Each structure stands twice: as structure tokens, then as C-alpha cells.
């Protein structure tokens, strides 16, 4: 299979470019935790309880209300290979906990992979909607519709005072976790990022690197999420996050402008050097890959690199992960072999846009 054919079938909606502010916002995700009334949380789940939950959701996705929202398929973790589960983790469709967890886990996927529902993870249900660009409201609308459709058949654990009850008190109430994945190379290169992150944690939000740790986020990719789930409405939580994200976007744009005005040569050198390495290197580890991809994406956004699609950052940051590489090359690869294949895959992807790449 050619790489472009593989990309066609392997990419989730969110991995494609598009959506508001997509030069900085890679994706928006809403995750809603729900549990079934009078049933122990997965913490204390027996086989009977777990199967009861699976039976309940299986009949829930067969209802007309649910089918109205798309084509859903339930996959039990035990029926998937570890590699396939890992691919879903790398596509951000399921959590590592679900992939590596016990025998009771399952995932319900909508055919376009915009929505995935994690079953028997930490909670009975985690409804997740992930979209490209800054589209939190849209993602929440869809998650809420799926939630309503489930509720037609499921009786939720809901408490008048505490709201939706969850296994962990950090999720109780709305059960909502709204997250925005952002590419912030300007703030990192101008040394402003730690100050920003500190400020964000003061307003009830958290930031973490998607890859790597804390402020040393690999690829300059950060995920900003709400911290609290109880006491505010979903709309207030999303509104608060959105306004902080908008401010971050402004700061990032200002930082990029400053880089272009005050440090043009250094910036061009950095960006083009990284492009050269991606285009010619024969071995790439995942850490360097993310850093170089971030540089190249910045170069594309700032008009320094032309003729390469902006989508390569998202595509390749997922495609160059270990499970995806092995899926594409259809064989088990040791880390050293992966570095060689990763470099080859990157060159192949760049050739799709730029025939000069060898």
C-alpha cells in the first residue's frame, strides 16, 4: 500500500488539518465521564458487573437515537491485538489505561473516529469527541448528543448535589474534561512559556506536554485542560478554557512576529536546518522527530518553507509513533530498526509534497 493510501485509511478526522485557528490549535477534545446507576465502578468490578455494562452499552448503541448520530462499532480490548490497541492510543482515541488495562475494557468507535467511547476504563463510560482546530463547542455539542442518546437506555449514576458520579472525585459533577492541543514554538523560542504556564495554572487550568514532561514538552506541543469539574456548568468550563486559549493564541502570534522581525536569520536557519535533516537523515529517534517537525511546521506557518503541507506535523507526529510504524511496515520493529524506518517514512511523506526530497 502506498503511503498516501495508508494515510487515507489510517488517519482520524482530527489528524487532518482544518478548523478555526489551525495554525496553532491542533485539536479540541471533550471527554465526559458517566457511570451506570446502582452498579459498582470499574474499581470493584466483577466479571458479572463488567459484562452487564458491556451488554447495556451494546444495546444502547443499537437504538435509532444513536444510529442517528453515526455508525458506531464496539470493540472489546481482548479481541484486539496489543499492536492495534497501541495504534488507537497513538491516535488519541483510547487511553493507555484502557489499552493496557484488564480484560473488561472496550471501545466504541464512530466510523470517522471523531467520537470514541471508552467502556470500563476508570468509569463505565468516557464519551470522547476530538476535532481538528479550535472547536470545543462543537465537540461538546456532539458529546452531549451522544450522552443523551445513551441516556435513552442507560440509567446514569446521578446525584442531586454532586451531579454525575465518577470513580474519582476529581471528575465528579459535570464529568467533563475539555482539552485543547496547541503548538506553541514561538512562546518556547522566546522563553515566555514557563511564565505562561504558571499563569494558566492560576486560573483553574492545567497544561502538560503531550510528549515529554512539563515545560520541556517535545515538539512544543501542549495540552491545556480544565482542572475542576464540579461547581460550574459545562458552558462556563468551556468558556473559561476558550478565553485562555484565545489569549495564548494571541501571545503565540506576537512571539512569532517578534521572531520574524528581530531574529529572522536565526529562525530561518533553524527551520531550514530541521527541514534538511527530516529530508535527508537516515535515522531519526522520536524525540528529534518531534522537535524537527515542530520547526518545519513553524517554517510553513511563517512562509519560510513553501510547498510542504501544514498537515505534516499532525500526520507525522502520530505516524512516527512505534505502533503506527509497525502497522505501516507490517512487521515487528526493534527500537533501532524503528529509527531507520521512521526516517524513511518521513522522507516518503515529504516526497508526497516535494519531489526534491531524497
Amino acid at each position, binding site marked *: 500500500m502506498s503511503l498516501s493510501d495508508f494515510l487515507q485509511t489510517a488517519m482520524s478526522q482530527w489528524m487532518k488539518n482544518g478548523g478555526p485557528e489551525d495554525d496553532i490549535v491542533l485539536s479540541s477534545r471533550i471527554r465526559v465521564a458517566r457511570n451506570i446507576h446502582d452498579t459498582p465502578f470499574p*474499581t470493584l468490578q466483577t466479571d458479572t458487573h463488567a459484562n452487564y455494562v458491556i451488554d447495556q452499552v451494546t444495546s444502547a448503541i443499537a437504538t435509532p437515537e444513536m444510529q442517528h448520530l453515526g455508525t458506531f462499532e464496539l470493540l472489546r480490548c481482548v479481541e484486539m491485538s496489543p499492536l492495534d490497541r497501541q495504534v488507537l492510543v497513538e491516535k488519541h482515541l483510547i487511553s493507555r489505561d484502557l489499552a493496557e488495562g484488564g480484560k473488561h475494557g472496550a471501545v466504541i468507535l464512530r466510523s470517522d473516529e471523531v467520537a470514541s467511547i471508552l467502556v470500563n476504563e476508570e468509569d463505565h463510560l468516557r464519551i470522547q469527541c476530538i476535532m481538528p482546530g479550535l472547536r470545543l463547542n462543537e465537540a461538546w455539542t456532539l458529546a452531549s448528543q451522544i450522552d443523551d442518546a445513551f441516556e435513552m437506555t442507560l*440509567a446514569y449514576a446521578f446525584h442531586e448535589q454532586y451531579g*454525575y458520579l465518577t470513580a474519582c472525585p*476529581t471528575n*465528579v459533577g*459535570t464529568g467533563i474534561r475539555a482539552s485543547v492541543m496547541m503548538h506553541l514554538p514561538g512562546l518556547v523560542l522566546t522563553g515566555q512559556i514557563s511564565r505562561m504556564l504558571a499563569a494558566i495554572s492560576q486560573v*483553574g487550568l492545567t497544561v502538560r506536554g503531550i510528549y515529554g514532561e512539563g515545560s520541556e514538552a517535545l515538539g512544543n506541543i501542549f495540552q491545556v485542560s480544565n482542572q475542576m469539574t464540579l*461547581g460550574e456548568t459545562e458552558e462556563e468550563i468551556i468558556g473559561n478554557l476558550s478565553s485562555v486559549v484565545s489569549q495564548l493564541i494571541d501571545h503565540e502570534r506576537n512571539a512569532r512576529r517578534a521572531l520574524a522581525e528581530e531574529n529572522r536569520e536565526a529562525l530561518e536557519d533553524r527551520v531550514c536546518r530541521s527541514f534538511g535533516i527530516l529530508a535527508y537523515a537516515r535515522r531519526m529517534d522520536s524525540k528529534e522527530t518531534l522537535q524537527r517537525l515542530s520547526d518545519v511546521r513553524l517554517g510553513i506557518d511563517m512562509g519560510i518553507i513553501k510547498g510542504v503541507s501544514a498537515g505534516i506535523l499532525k500526520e507525522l507526529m502520530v505516524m512516527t509513533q512505534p505502533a503506527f510504524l509497525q502497522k505501516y511496515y507490517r512487521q515487528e520493529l526493534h527500537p533501532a530498526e524503528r529509527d531507520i524506518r521512521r526516517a524513511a517514512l518521513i522522507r516518503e511523506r515529504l516526497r508526497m509534497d516535494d519531489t526534491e526530497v531524497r
Partner: protein
Amino acid sequence: MCQRCNERPATVHFTKIVNGEQSGYHLCEQCAKEHGGFFAKAAQAFDFNQLLSGLLNMESSPGFSAPPATSLRCSSCGMSYSQFTEIGRLGCPKCYESFSVRLDPLLRRIQNGTAHSGKVPVRSGEQVKVRKNLDTLRKELQSAIASEQFERAAQLRDQIRDLEQRMNH
């Protein structure tokens, strides 16, 4: 060795002091990060140490007279409060009521208060309303009986019967 996966060496050590009793918790970095349940959640959602010290302070704050964690137990799933502090996850939906005396102060620290103000499920929300109604009616019935207002009591009894029937449908 890591207490969770029993595979990798434990490099992350937590110490908890509950009612003066010290207990250690040893995880590998990966488990601490990914599988620590509450701890992972907590670390993700806010600073881990902040939470633990929060828990700790609560146990020792003067004038706080909740029953000891060891004796608090959920009648529905059997989980004890100290088990909850060990694993960081509750056993069942009823745990929230069983542990409310201790959970409320915790929620006040880690959440934006203790009262939900967001979406309400259509069906279960209706049930909650009916249940609340029933509670009020039952109280009224008792006081009606106590004050020998038997006509009123009969009315209330019929209303309660109606609501109970609706609950079962």
C-alpha cells in the same frame, strides 16, 4: 519493585500519614504517571503534593471531628474510606453519600465547591426530583400523623403511593 506492575523498579515513593499511621506507596515512574488512578489524575489535574498535603491537613486539622477513616465504610459496596485513600478511586456511586462527611471537605479543596450546576440527565434527573418530592411528603406524613391530622395523612399517603408507582416505571 513497583507495587503495581511488579516489573519495573519503584522510583516514585509516596508517604501518607493517616491518623498518625504512616504508610509508604512505591511505584515505578510509568505506573505513577499512568496507572496511579487518583494519583495520576491528581498529578494531571493539579500538583500531586498539593493534594496529598491537602488530604493530610484535613486529617489533622483541629476541630475536625469526622469519624476515623478506618471505621467509615460504604454499606453498598463495602469499601472503607481508608481503602479509598489508598487507591484513590471510589467503589460505587453510593460511596459519595457514605463518605460525604469526609468527601465534602476534600471536594471543597479540589473542586469549585460541592454543588453541581451543570447538565442534568433527562430520565435520572426526573427520578431525582421525584425522590426528593417523596422525602418531603414522607416527612409531612409523619408530622400529620403526629399531630393527628388523619384526613391530611390519608391524602399524603395516596400521593406517596402514586409517586412510588411512577418511580417503578
